[in-house]
């Protein structure tokens, strides 16, 4: 399958990442899932290549490539190991990006540079026990006392939570004001009063870390405010615009990985003495999957391309891409698993992992229902 949108540079980068994924990650991926541990050894190799700062300018420690290149990176990694891919997506899209877009020069120097270089790991704390889809319902509070912020509250489901050195998060300065009372902040690991709590035991993405974060009378210096006071809602809405594309492409990568595997399997395995690929029911599954994946691919890279052309907000396109790709991926993984029969049900083959991993893409960074609301708001206006 050819894809028209890529330049030669994109193709070269894709081949480089693909080569890496095959050589360094393919054999590890089952073990990463099995152990359910953060793949430090892989992340270290990824950081050496500068891939934890792909889309940021070199002066901030990045590779200075475009959004499309970053999306290519996530796709190629997700094709092999979604746990590793979501680590990267959360780090780049949710931690680095808001600092790059909203940070002061000092903040970029202090946080973005080591994050892009991969010397530090980043994470984004938006969700709370009572504020999931309604992230504006943030209950974590921030009070400016003298020249310090006093933070109290709990975050839940935070990717990279335990391993992160730098966490961007939201808190409300004035809960009466609802979304207009929210500000964004940066906290570093080891800050007194801040602690990562329980780790979630999840259906999939078992090599990625999802944690609670606790703030108990946590004091932050005044300059740890990210962006302007009371504009935290805007900060995270913009962050999610781009973040959605990265979740969408994670789903795309998983679906493509499942399809690749399904094709190979259908060639090599037989059912009742007849090669699988000669069955029409198998051909239908593969053809539908290939078609839907291609459609998802266009949506995803279209959204990334708009960003590269300087479009400030890609709300609608990002939401469509994420909604479609995530639903396609669940369908594709499940159907291809069915081709494998009982081989689709154990860890000896990757399909059952793909399905468990991809289901999150319909939930994280806004559920499918929330994407539909975002899209229809763009269509009808508020």
């Amino acid at each position, binding site marked *: 399958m050819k894809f028209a949108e890529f330049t030669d540079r994109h193709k070269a980068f894709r081949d480089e990442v693909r080569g890496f994924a095959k050589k360094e990650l393919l054999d590890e991926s089952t073990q990463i899932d099995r152990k359910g541990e953060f793949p430090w050894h892989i992340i270290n190799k990824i950081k050496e290549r500068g891939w934890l700062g792909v889309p940021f300018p070199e002066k901030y420690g990045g590779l200075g490539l475009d959004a499309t290149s970053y999306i290519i990176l996530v796709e190629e990694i997700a094709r092999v190991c979604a746990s590793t891919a979501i680590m990267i997506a959360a780090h780049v899209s949710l931690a680095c990006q808001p600092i790059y877009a909203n940070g002061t020069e000092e903040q970029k120097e202090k946080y973005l540079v080591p994050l892009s270089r991969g010397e530090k790991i980043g994470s984004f704390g938006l969700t709370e026990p009572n504020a999931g889809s309604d992230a504006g319902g943030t209950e974590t509070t921030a009070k400016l006392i003298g020249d310090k912020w006093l933070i109290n509250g709990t975050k839940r489901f935070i990717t990279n939570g335990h391993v992160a050195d730098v966490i961007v998060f939201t808190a409300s300065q004035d809960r009466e004001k609802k979304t207009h009372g929210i500000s964004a902040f940066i906290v570093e690991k080891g800050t007194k009063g801040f602690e990562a709590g329980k780790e979630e035991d999840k259906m999939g993405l078992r090599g990625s870390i999802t944690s609670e974060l606790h703030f108990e009378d946590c004091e932050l210096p005044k300059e740890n405010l990210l962006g302007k006071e009371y504009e935290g809602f805007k900060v995270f809405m913009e962050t999610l615009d781009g973040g959605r594309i990265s979740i969408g492409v994670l789903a795309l990568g998983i679906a493509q990985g499942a399809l690749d595997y399904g094709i190979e399997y259908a060639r090599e395995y*037989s059912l009742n003495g007849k090669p699988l690929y000669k069955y029409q*029911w198998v051909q239908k599954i593969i053809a539908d999957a290939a078609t839907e994946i291609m459609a998802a691919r266009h949506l995803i890279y279209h959204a990334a391309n708009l960003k590269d052309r300087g479009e400030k907000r890609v709300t609608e396109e990002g939401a469509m891409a994420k909604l479609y790709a995530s639903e396609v991926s669940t369908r594709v993984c499940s159907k291809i698993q069915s081709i494998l029969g009982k081989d689709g049900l154990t860890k000896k083959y990757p399909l059952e992992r793909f399905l468990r991993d991809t289901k999150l893409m319909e939930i994280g960074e806004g559920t499918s229902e929330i994407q539909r609301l975002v899209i229809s708001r763009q269509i009808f206006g508020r």
Partner: protein
Amino acid sequence: MDWMGLKDEHKLLRQDMKRFAETELSSVVLEMDKKGEPLTSAMKKIGEIGGLGILISEEFGGAGMDFLSLIVTVEELAKISPSFALSVAIHNFFGEAILSYGSTEFKKEYLFSLSTGKMIGGMAVDTMNHPIPSNGCEERLVVNGTFSDIFGFSVKIDEKEQFVVKKKGEELKEETEMMGMRSSGISSFKLDENAMSEDKRFNIDSANDFYSRMRLLLASVACGICQASLENAISYSKERHQFDRLIASFGMVRTMLADMASRAYASRIVVYQASSVNNVLDREIASVFTTESSLYVTDKGVQIYGGYGYIKDYPLEMFFRDAKVLEVFAGSADYRKVLIGKSLTS
């Protein structure tokens, strides 16, 4: 919604099983799923109340109930633990196989122990073939394999279907890495010379009929999963607030619930109905429809729970994994549809 053919005895049985599941299964099910261990002590206990000899006639120590009774039992247990329900279903059905096809002496030797649970039976559920490497050897999956004393599987020899019964030996390999049904003690074995040695064989005259009934039992596990996911999702959506409202008040959540409910209701009716008529095709249709429905319903159940559907603190993600296993391991639904289409046109 209940089916009109249900008698009082079935309703009473359902209540008993509900109570049993709540007291004996609910507190341990999630932990055992994580560990991938069977619920063996509950297995013992259900034997004590007659749940392991449901179809066996009283002369052999069983309860002598009808097939619908087994369906109702399995469905009810599956609402709390699909794995356990599967184990109970397969044990009972193994007994049925001995009862239908075994020699008199064999029946006398084994049926008493089986119907009281002194002995546990296992069975290969994948009567339909699975894909194999181009020159590879076929493998079978045996439910209850890790903890049964005796198990059966069927093979075709000279175009004749035979039911092979074996005492458990070394050929059974525990499948520790199943995606779902992790407490059913699923094991596998290679269908080679070795597997066929030292065994007892019986002729099965109507294999299609026999196995379609087994697949209907798998469908009743799926039915239970549908019901439970629906019930969980309904109560969760009536507790969880977002945007200062119950999520049950959102149109998209409501439509998901409606889609779940229609499939859950239809599954139940179609399974009960198919259990009461003597028609293989009806059973196949019921079983494919129901297992596919359970995947659909559990997927939506996870969705309604949001992030909480993705973690092991709640049963939704387990139901989803279990449903996927059901949809595939007795033969992929997509493949079985081809066979149904063939029957419909022949």
